């Protein structure tokens, strides 16, 4: 999902931990107790969470770019206000998540540095370009739709601050998906040309959306441990199947064709079966070689550098005022 790259195998091994403490920790997890920042936790649990929450945060922040690209070109004031509010929400989601990650002992500055240096990962989906206005609808419908599938179970994550951040995020996501679908519905009903634009957007966004759920269960190396720790509640393939089952009828309602000739309804299981994802493309985009990876990173770097003087000035102003207050106090005594 927003944390696909977690599924890569880790090479380093950490020092063994006290078996008794580990067992007590697992017992708390099994009893559905929430783990809070000051509680004892295995180093690997902390590390997994820092990586997962920060990748999730980075995805929200980078995710503002493809949509932000269309704010000045929205076709009506209503659509512009909705898109602006949605992009602002995504910025908020990034901030809730950075705060949650910081409770584990990592600083905001470190996290920002990891993103800007290209060491940290974010969701592959945001490395695709938004070519037409229909892409804005497709992102709301498919990308936020996939995010909702993934984020709802995260509301029950064993780590308290992450679960609480997810509850806030989920409350806001529904509007994101609905505004996207409504926009597409309006386009599909208005003219053949506009409907063709929507079909083209679906053709380009369908497969990358399925990739958001990460590698298939047979290749996902972190799943079992994350499930045992109740960070994750469903496997990648389970969530992907849920998404396909929910989305195919919505595409049909719009009168669109899903770009997959293997797609078929299996009456026996009640699920839609679908074709194979292009895993080479997935690996390429995750590794940094998607259509927009470089553009996204340089946009974030530019924003960070251009904002440096504001951060510096705000701190200098705060220091000056604090010094003046201290001086006034001394004078009064």
């Amino acid at each position: 999902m927003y944390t696909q790259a977690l599924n890569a195998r880790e090479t380093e091994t950490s020092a063994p931990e006290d078996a008794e403490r580990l067992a007590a920790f697992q017992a708390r997890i099994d009893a559905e107790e929430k783990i809070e920042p000051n509680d004892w936790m295995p180093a690997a649990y902390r590390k997994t969470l820092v990586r997962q929450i920060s990748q999730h945060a980075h995805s929200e922040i980078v995710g503002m770019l493809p949509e932000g690209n269309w704010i000045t070109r929205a076709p009506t004031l209503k659509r512009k206000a909705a898109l602006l509010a949605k992009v602002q929400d995504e910025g908020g989601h990034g901030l809730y998540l950075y705060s949650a990650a910081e409770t584990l002992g990592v600083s905001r500055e470190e996290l920002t540095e990891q993103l800007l240096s290209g060491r940290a990962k974010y969701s592959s989906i945001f490395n695709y370009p938004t070519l037409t206005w229909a892409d804005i609808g497709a992102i709301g419908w498919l990308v936020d739709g996939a995010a909702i599938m993934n984020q709802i179970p995260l509301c029950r994550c064993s780590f308290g601050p992450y679960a609480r951040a997810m509850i806030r995020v989920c409350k806001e996501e529904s509007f994101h998906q609905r505004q996207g679908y409504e926009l597409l519905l309006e386009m599909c009903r208005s003219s053949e040309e506009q409907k063709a634009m929507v079909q083209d957007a679906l053709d380009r966004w369908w497969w990358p959306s399925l990739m958001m759920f990460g590698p298939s269960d047979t290749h996902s190396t972190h799943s079992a441990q994350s499930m045992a720790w109740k960070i994750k509640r469903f496997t990648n393939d389970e969530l992907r199947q849920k998404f396909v089952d929910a989305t195919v009828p919505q595409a049909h309602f719009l009168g669109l064709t899903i770009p997959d000739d293997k797609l078929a309804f299996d009456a026996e299981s009640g699920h839609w079966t679908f074709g194979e994802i292009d895993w080479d493309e997935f690996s390429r985009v995750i590794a940094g070689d998607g259509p927009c990876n470089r553009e996204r990173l340089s946009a974030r770097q530019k924003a960070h550098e251009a904002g440096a003087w504001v951060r510096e000035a705000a701190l200098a102003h705060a220091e000056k005022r604090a010094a003046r207050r201290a001086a006034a106090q001394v004078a009064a005594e």
Partner: protein
Amino acid sequence: MTEKTTPLWEVFIRSRTGMAHRHCGSVHAADAEMALQAARDVYTRRGEGLSIWVVPSAEIIASDPSEKGMLFEPTASKIYRHPTFYEIPEDVGNM
């Protein structure tokens, strides 16, 4: 660039339901005034609050989780602090 870190603030919000201020997350800001503005933007975009408190995170003193037993267990045995500990005949009615 040698950038200084921006202080962290804990955010508490009183919702429109008239509840007490409740912790809802944190923000980074250079000073208290900017912390309030950031908290408004980050945590109250849909009318979630009518009042905000921000407190420097470094000023929060927290109890030690390893002392949980010592601090909170003794109350478990004091069942006489609860109304159900006392028997009142049904004839008396609601009390």
